[in-house]
């Protein structure tokens, strides 16, 4: 699995990742030996069926979970044996997350949800700026219960990118959305990848979405089965599923 020539530097490297969940007396292997590099500024789609290990991989890469064995490096930092404090700082400073179920704080308005991230970041953009990037400049003072699903997801994206993360990790960002709304959300992600240059990884089980990626990583059974380069990537508006 050699890196494509146009991407020079690996931001995140994983080697020999194994993740085994002990569920009582049964051990379930979620990842069995994954090697992976993510390069600066690229947009990667991790494609796989349910149970293929893609969420587990994303959680380990994002510092939410630790591998049973194997190494993860973020630039010059070794995350493999990092303690809770280091993992927290890694997430705080470098990683933006977007979740399938948005995970907005219901008691905070749109602007305040984004401010949650900007309050603790070193060099954030303003919440207003972040929300403008996802076209929500006019919904700043609404609470989550007053927003549609697509709008909530875009708030979540604004919250993830407001800190200018190096890595933007998205777990099924369109999973809870209808087709049209999903496209709006994907457009926002593509635009941010383009304009901010954040390395972006999107998990999906929805194959057509892969056509917007620079690279597509196919997972199944806890292994990477193939990595496809996509020289003719499409804009999300050109994709349909």
């Amino acid at each position, binding site marked *: 699995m050699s890196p494509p020539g146009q991407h020079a530097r690996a931001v995140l490297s994983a080697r020999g990742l194994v993740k085994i969940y002990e569920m009582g007396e049964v051990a379930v292997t979620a990842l069995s030996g994954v090697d992976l590099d993510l390069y600066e500024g690229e947009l990667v789609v991790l494609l796989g069926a349910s149970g293929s290990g893609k969420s587990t991989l994303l959680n380990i890469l994002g510092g*939410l979970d630790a591998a049973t064995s194997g190494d993860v490096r973020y630039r010059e930092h070794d995350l493999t044996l990092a303690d809770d404090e280091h993992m927290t700082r890694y*997430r705080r400073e470098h990683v933006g*997350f977007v979740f399938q179920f948005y995970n907005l704080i*219901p008691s905070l308005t749109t602007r*305040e949800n984004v401010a949650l991230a900007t309050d603790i970041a070193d060099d954030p953009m303003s919440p207003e700026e972040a929300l403008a990037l996802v076209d929500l400049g006019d919904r700043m003072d609404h609470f989550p*219960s007053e927003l549609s699903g697509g709008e909530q997801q875009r708030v979540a994206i604004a919250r993830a990118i407001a800190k200018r993360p190096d890595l933007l990790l998205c777990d099924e960002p369109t999973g809870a959305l209808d087709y049209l709304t999903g496209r709006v959300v994907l457009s926002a992600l593509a635009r941010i990848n383009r304009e901010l240059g954040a390395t972006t990884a999107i998990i999906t089980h929805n194959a057509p979405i892969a056509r917007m990626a620079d690279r597509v990583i196919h997972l199944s059974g806890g292994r990477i089965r193939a990595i496809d380069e996509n020289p003719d990537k499409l804009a999300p508006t050109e994709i349909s599923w």
Partner: protein
Amino acid sequence: MSALATKLRRDLGRMVGQGLTIALVVACGIASYVTLQSAYASLLAARDDYYASCRFADVFAHVKRAPESLAARIADIPGVALAETRLVEPVMLPVEGLSEPATGRLVSLPRSGEPRLNALVLREGRALDASRPDEVLVLESFAEAHHLEPGARLPVVMNGVLRSLQVVGVVLSPEYVMAVGGGAGQEFAPDALHFAVLFMGRDAMAPAFDLAGAFDDVTLRLEPGASERDVRAQLDALVAPYGGVGSVGRSRQPSAFFVDNELSQLDSYATVAPMLFLGVAAFLVNVVLSRLVHLQRPQIATLKALGYGRARIGAHFLELVGAIAALGCVAGVALGAWLGRGTLGMYAPYFRFPSLAYRLDARIAAAGVLVSLASAALGALGVVARVVRLPPAEAMQPEAPPTYEPSLLERLGVARLLSTEGRMVLRELTRRPLRFFFSVAGIACGVGVVVVGGFTFDAFDVILDLEFESAERHDVAVSFTRPVPASSLRTLAAMPGVLAVEPLRVVPVRLRSGHRFHETALVGHPAGAELRRVVEWPWHVAPVPDDGLMLTDMLADKLGLTVGDSVTLEVLEGDRRTRTAQVTALSREVFGMMAHMELGALHRLVGEEPVVSTALLRTDPADEAGVDARLKRLPAVASVGKRRQVIAQFERQTAETMRITALVLTLFGCAIALAIVYNNARIALSVRGRDLATLRVLGFTRGEISAVLLGELATHVLVAVPPGLLVGRALSGFMMANVDAELYRMPVIISGATYAFGACVTLLAAMGSALLVRGKLGELDLVGALKARE
């Protein structure tokens, strides 16, 4: 075991901490009920048994002097089953160790030694020997306070003559269950020290009071169904010509009155205290069950889809609550039985019953259990009703996201001052104002209960300060065997080691106004007295008027007198003449039903030379032993009392009772605060777990997210503290309102330290339980929280 029963068991297993804390509050509630009710019932039974077995009289009447022949006419009054005449006379006892002589009663016993009414119980020694006129039996409370044993000799001033009497036995009397004389002047805790009751053969006693062939007191037993009112009216008419002062029924007999008063106090506490705890328990059940039901919506839907009926599902949740409440009941009854026994033990030194056995009636326990279960059910009712009404299809859907809006404070612009986390806390509070209110009210109750515990100490300090620091400022009180000329004080003043001397004249009197009367001590103070002053609440020295009587306002109330009125005054020593005096001032003293006069005015009123009964000394601390020795050598000195010893005695008597009460109340108050904060915290964690995990994912540290969680809890507690202090004050006031004004009037003063203690203890209990929950923040499942809605 049915599947539903298994679910119940597992649900309980998962909420052990919450279940236990709720059970704890239920236990406190039922324990307070069982404690107070069982102590009440035990005292009531002891009282009734005692009154019955000792033939406690139904009607009491005192006269000045009536011929014995009147006895037969009294016995003939319709409705009278039995009439017994006797002699009851006031005496003074200049006992060693007291600053002022003890006052008391000398009561005659018939020749047989066994009165037909108001029989005595011999606790120690033997009965009177009719052939020995100087023998007396002494009431146990006084004997204990002065360590008197059979064989001891006792100085007693009988009709102005000092005699030395021999104690041959120690007894209990149903007329003196509580050793109160109905006006000896010292009606609070150290009664036993200052109030004596002696029993003497009537043949020996009559000549000393010039009452041979006569009686001055009669007690009656009524026939079943007889009207006390009618009998008393006829009796009063019969004895009026002989100086009758109006009969009283058993309910107004002084000891019986105080016992009944104490019992009704217990009874009213037994209602209020449990209500407080069970109210809190109902609130907690409501909050915890609401959360559980919220979490179990899909399960409830599934059960309904499977065909479980509404009643069965409702019962399932009630069983859960019932199990928790039942645990509280078992613990509460056990704790209540233990504390009840202890409470009864605290009464033993004050209530002199021949036997005071603790009994826990099954009906009391059952009533406590029923009330507790009912309060838990009350808390559960609304929630269970929601459950059974929930349509299955709707329950399958996740509940709609909670709706928030900017709070009023934010619209006023306050929120700009708050951080994002601060705003989360604020909105969480304002979104559920009712829950916030009840939570605050509950914690406030906890604070209040702790404050009441501290109040008993403050009250004690006030008594000490008023009586022993502000009012009595002498070091030594010297009592004389009989009043001595005021000039003899010069001898004392000249004595080495004596820095100052002041005279005091104490005359036993009966004050009468119309049909009302009261026996008390009339105290004569020298003008400008420094060593013994009349101190009013709050710390104001009331000057004794140059002329006329100054009564405590409680005594004036009792006699229906006010400034300017005249009062009849019978001097109960010497020539026992009746005088009239004018009330020229009232004092607001905390204790007692006392009368004060200027010394010279008193001499003029009584018609005596300037004499003193007590000398108050201020002495040089460096020469204490020398002063003692020199005083003992003086011939007319009956006793030398040290103020310090009296204080120590008072502290010994009350301190332990107060410490235990305060400890129990503090623990109960903490239990409330702990239970509420812990459950609030667990629920906040459960409701907000997903939010908190999201914040962690966004890079917030554990410390930062605990600020969000604990900030909310801290707000509840901090908001609850000020009203809690007020609740404490109100509860203390309630306690005092239940004390009869004739006993004492305690100002509800609560020190800053007590308030601070109440606040701090509650805050600590709250912090303790919050920290327990904070530990759980480490267990937040970051990955799981992101997967799906709960």
